[in-house]
């Protein structure tokens, strides 16, 4: 479980940051990684584990950056991967984004963070609120304060929460406006076959919180239908016992944004599919015919928004000409993607797209069955039917402002033809 070094590598294969926790590892270890990177058709295809003759390289790809961890002995690969994602999460919280330029601009903070997060290759402090107390995020206010007072961005005392029993919460939090917002976001993953039958459908949901409450509030959230949730994972702040006995989420929240709970509703359950797609794509006699219709289904009266249909055409296709009843279409001749931007689905106007694609003479792609990818978003609807019943706050006296928002999105929603 020891991470020797981490290299930050950008898209074009430059190492723009390196940090070593044990003996220094030469940059040349990354050569094998670069080989794999050039070989992979897309950045996502780079295998997460690469063996070199002495080292093991475990990499993640996020925000167009590769993080490559070098380890020299047996580790749990997920341990390293999870840690690197946590590093990226932390950077995102610190700099609002975790791009190459953000890291380069804040290189000192990044370096200090890495130093605190890992000691001799083993995680030391990964809890965001402890880190923010140790090393101040480079916000404008903090920068201004340090300019004026000459105060440094590094704390000289150990944050109390490091030793407390609620290490995720900062002590002595004070807000003028006390508010707690909960976003219940559900991704629908579905595979629908050519005949319109649902082959598989799953929901993956998160409850994202943005909590700004003073003091040490103790929240408890109950659901109208907690039975839905049989496969969940929690932020460490949730009292597991309370959940097991009463199906109530009881927790002292961290300060700021965090994911309270993730849940998964598997294929065994009935999952409502909020949209239908009827698609006909076939290639005959040097011509491709396309006919796609989209419409809402089981949305409980909510409008379906941000609808985008993407069809990856076979590589033989040279062009498409379509007519659409709603929205616009584009065809990218390089990636061979036909993209139909529908936007909001109006109740009375059924979006359809018809047309043909051209194939070069002699090209045959009779067996091509492109899989259509559908993207959509429905506000104010949790397609699983999950609903927050109530949210109570104890331990503090003020009245906080509370809000719950539901969003259903398409995850990996695809229609086979």
């Amino acid at each position: 479980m020891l991470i020797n070094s981490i290299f930050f590598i950008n898209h074009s294969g430059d190492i723009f940051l390196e940090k070593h926790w044990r003996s220094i590892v030469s940059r040349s270890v990354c050569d094998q990684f670069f080989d794999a990177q050039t070989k992979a058709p897309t950045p996502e295809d780079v295998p997460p584990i690469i063996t070199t003759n002495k080292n093991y390289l475990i990499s993640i790809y996020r925000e167009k950056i590769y993080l490559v961890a070098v380890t020299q002995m047996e580790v749990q690969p997920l341990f390293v991967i999870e840690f690197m994602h946590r590093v990226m999460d932390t950077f995102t919280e610190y700099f609002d984004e975790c791009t190459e330029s953000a890291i380069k601009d804040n290189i000192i903070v990044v370096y200090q963070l890495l130093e605190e997060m890992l000691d001799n290759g083993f995680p030391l402090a990964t809890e965001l609120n402890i880190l923010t107390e140790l090393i101040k995020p480079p916000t404008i206010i903090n920068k201004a304060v340090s300019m004026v007072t000459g105060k440094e961005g590094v704390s000289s005392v150990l944050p109390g929460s490091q030793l407390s029993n609620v290490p995720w919460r900062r002590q002595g939090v004070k807000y003028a406006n006390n508010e707690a917002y909960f976003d219940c976001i559900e991704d629908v993953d579905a595979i629908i076959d050519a005949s319109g039958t649902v082959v598989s459908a799953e929901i993956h949901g998160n409850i994202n919180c943005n909590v700004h409450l003073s003091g040490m509030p103790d929240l408890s959230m109950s659901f109208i239908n907690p039975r839905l949730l049989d496969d969940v994972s929690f932020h460490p702040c949730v009292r597991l016992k309370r959940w097991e006995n009463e199906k109530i989420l009881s927790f002292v929240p961290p300060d700021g944004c965090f994911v309270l709970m993730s849940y998964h509703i598997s294929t065994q359950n009935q999952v409502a599919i909020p949209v239908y797609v009827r698609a006909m794509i076939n290639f005959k006699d040097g011509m491709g015919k396309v006919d796609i219709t989209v419409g809402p289904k089981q949305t409980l009266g909510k409008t379906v928004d941000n609808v985008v249909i993407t069809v990856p055409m076979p590589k033989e296709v040279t062009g498409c000409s379509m007519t659409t009843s709603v929205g616009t279409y584009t065809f990218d001749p390089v990636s061979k993607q036909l993209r139909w931007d529908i936007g909001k689905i109006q109740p009375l106007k059924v979006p359809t797209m018809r047309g043909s694609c051209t194939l070069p003479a002699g090209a045959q792609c009779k067996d091509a069955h492109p899989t259509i990818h559908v993207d959509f978003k429905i506000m104010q609807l949790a397609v699983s039917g999950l609903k927050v019943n109530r949210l109570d706050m104890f331990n503090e006296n003020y009245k906080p402002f509370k809000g719950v928002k539901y969003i259903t999105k398409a995850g990996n929603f695809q229609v086979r033809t």
Partner: protein
Amino acid sequence: MAGMGAFVAQYDNNRGPDQQGTPGFMGSNLFFKGHQTLKEQLQSMKDKEMLEAMRKIVEMVAKGQDVSDLFPDVVKAVVSKSTEVKKLVYMYLVRYAEEQQDLALLSISTFQKGLKDPNQLIRASALRVLSSIRVQMIVPIMMLAIKDSVSDLSPYVRKTAAHAIPKLYSLDPDQGEQLIDVVEKLLQDKTTLVAGSAVMAFEQLCPSRIDLIHKNYRRLCAIVADIDEWGQCAVINMLTRYARTQFVDPNRKTEEKDSDEETSEDSEDSEENFMNSLQSGPIDAVDPDLRLLLQACRPLLQSRNSAVVMQVAQLFYHCAPEGEIVHVVKALIRLLKSKRETQVIVLTNITTMSAKYRKLFELHMKSFFVNASDPTNVRLLKLEILTNIATETNISVLLREFQTYVYSSDKEFAAATVHAIGRCAAEISEVTDVCMHGLMNLISTKDDTVVGESVIVIKKLLQMQASDKSGIIKRMTRLLTTVTVPLARASILWLVGEYVEKVPKLAPDVLRKMAKSFADEEDIVKLQILNLAAKAWIVNNKKITLLVPYILAQAKYDLNYDIRDRERFIRKVLCPNSENPSPLEKYAKKFFMTSKPPPNLRSTFKNRDEYQLGSLSHMLNSNAIGYQPLPSFPEVAPDSSVRTVVDTSWAAQARESRSSSASATNHKTKGFYSSEGDTDEEDSDEEDSDSEDEESDSEEESDEESDEESDEDSSEEEDSNEEESDKEEDESSDEDSSSEEEVVKKPPPKTKTSKKAKPAATATLLDFDEPSAPPNVTAPTVPQSSVTLDELLGDFGTMSVDPASSGPNYSLDSVRVTHDLLHRMSGGGLAVQYSFPRSGTISGAVPISLVLNNTTDQPITDVKVDDIDLKGGVEFSGFDSIPMISPGQSTQVGININFNDTLQPAKFTLCSSKGRFPCKIQPPVGELLSPFVVIESDFDSMKGKLSGMHEVTGECGNCGKDPGTISQLVSETAATSICFSAETNCLKFASKTAAQEKTLLITLNVGEIIKISVNSEAVVLGSMILKDIIKVIEA
């Protein structure tokens, strides 16, 4: 030496950037100038200037540039007062110390001074840097520093010390022996903050010293839920290995048990037989200690950290009884939806699991359906899993799914799908024909890869099947004109040759065609043509007398010597044209036409589980450096008493660190149990069901407490063992007598009694051979105990656990003393106990948890609360009526009573099918409070406001109790939360009254005499609490 190698690497590394022309290296002149300014800034000794310089330097270090020439100046900056400068200097030092050893020594004294600093953060970072400086000369200093820090008051410093151990060990392996002692000490550390790192150090230093774990095993199980997520990974990993060395394979036992059950079923009435079966196979084959581990880890499947979930999954896979592995399935499926990298690794592990346990993932088959957006490696893994879990029932769905995959534009994937279809066909005989038909259809598609793969698969399938093949072979020979994939062509030819007897007319025809194209074929195809020629010749050489020599002649002049070789061999054996037959000819049939074993279409993941799941080695399917293979279970379990902790000191710690208080309550509850046991024993003979309850109850208890056992219980255990061996024939009477002995031994009530009752119960748990459990009632015991464990674990998960404080370990949380609400005698068989869980407060009310236990042998129905009689503003919220409690079962419900900060009892009536029973709950004054977390400065200011008449003071003698014990006593007495104080010997507790939320502060000055002051607006409560505290401290 290691240093040398590293130095070379270092050198390489430094050169790298120069060549790449990293910005900042415009020219050597500028470069020099830049450094010159930095030097000046460093020498200025002004904080701001130095900070700026250090930031620039560290930035260069981060980018991988060489700034080693600044070392002398940076070392001097180590004395800076500014924390940030210091930290930056530390980073620089650690980076370059190895190559500038002499200069690095200059900084050592600063760190040594830092180690003595009152600020724990400074102590910790001094230790971190000191141990990171890889300079051989300071090994003794490091050793000393680590030894000191291990007993530091701050757990944070101790954690850092744990991290320093592997650093020192890698620098100087000779220190190993000494460090093991240090690790041993750290493993006993009571705070959860340290536990994870201590185990990590153990794994790095001496993973084979399993003996160091024995004493800590149960405690680690108990606190694993509270350790930070990274520590959890290390702990579970280590405990998995531990379990594999210390417990017998739970699955092996299960089999034995099954067979035993069968025999006992055969002669159901035979008491003796049953007893025998009891003896040979325990009821629960799982060692209670292993059970403890599994129970403790299971809730962690809900962790947000995928590594933790994976660790729990591998623990269950490698150590749990087969039937329980299913618990991890859902969690693993959930992980598939997380990050891409996670998905690949989890899928690989699932593949291995599914290769062994086909049923495990069957229900979740659809989760493995391939998405169009999956990268190829994910697709292949999913395909492998789908094939692994294929059964008669799901095969039709699966084949339909495969059908779409076959047409995928990803050719590698399509070919793998064909292969998967072949495997399904081979494994599930029902669909063999369907698959074969499907594969035949695929042959006529246009895609070479798919066709080729299909032919190969068909060939393998045909070999396995005994049915008539001529039709299929005929169809396939037709393909020879179209198929171009060499392996596929070779396969077809091989098929014709192999079954030449079945298709005698076809072979010469095929041979004729191939003879024409021989020269243009690939080598493998040529070899198969030769084989076919030989086989056809042996069967019937009439039609091909000219054809075969022609082919052989072509082969004779082939470029490839393998082919020439084969040609020569065939010619010698068959002698097609020569007059005198070769002596080998009669053996020709044996050479060419032997029956061949059918190929095995099997998952390549079949035996991958020899590597520990979740490990790097498993991913690579080869031994990674430093991988420790999982030991296989021992045949006979080593002595389990080694895990029994002889000195009770850690039991007290565990009591503190666990929120669930069961252990603390022990004194009282035990008294309860044992006294009841006393009365029970007399009439137990006819009241089977009663004693059963007793049994399960006490087991439940002891399960919670098993960690707390003292030496008594080990001796007790031996006792029971002896008894067993002595009187095997007459188990039941033995049981009676042994329990009678127990009764006799028990001195009458209260604390001592409790001590005695417990061992008996533990003995039953630890040693299932203990025959005390009456027949046919033993089953519920395990589930019941698991329920309580779950509760326990639930509590671990809450935040109220283990305040890793500076100094001794204090507990913030609840102590659950159980009180009797309704005795089973007066409640018509319904026994109700209540306790104050101190969690889940609803504003103003005191939460109370009721455990309703049906001790009769009939179900008790419709249990509800009625006739609530309240005085003085007391409010009561009951529970919904319970429809039924089955015999021997217990139910837990929560009620909330707002006592309005008074000691008025809440009276109510409990109704059930057995009648109406009046009850009364009077809370101890300490339970009317709710803990409330403050920091010390707030505490002091609040205390300042509550002086004068709001303050009550008192004092009592200290009979040698240390602050830790006292703090524990206080938090047991009153629901308060400790406020960490900087003053030594000063304990501060804060709470609010439950109803009116008046602040109540308790301060104790521990000395020869303990001075206690309670500050609160609720003066009456305050004085009562003061009395209570004095009472418990003096007791």
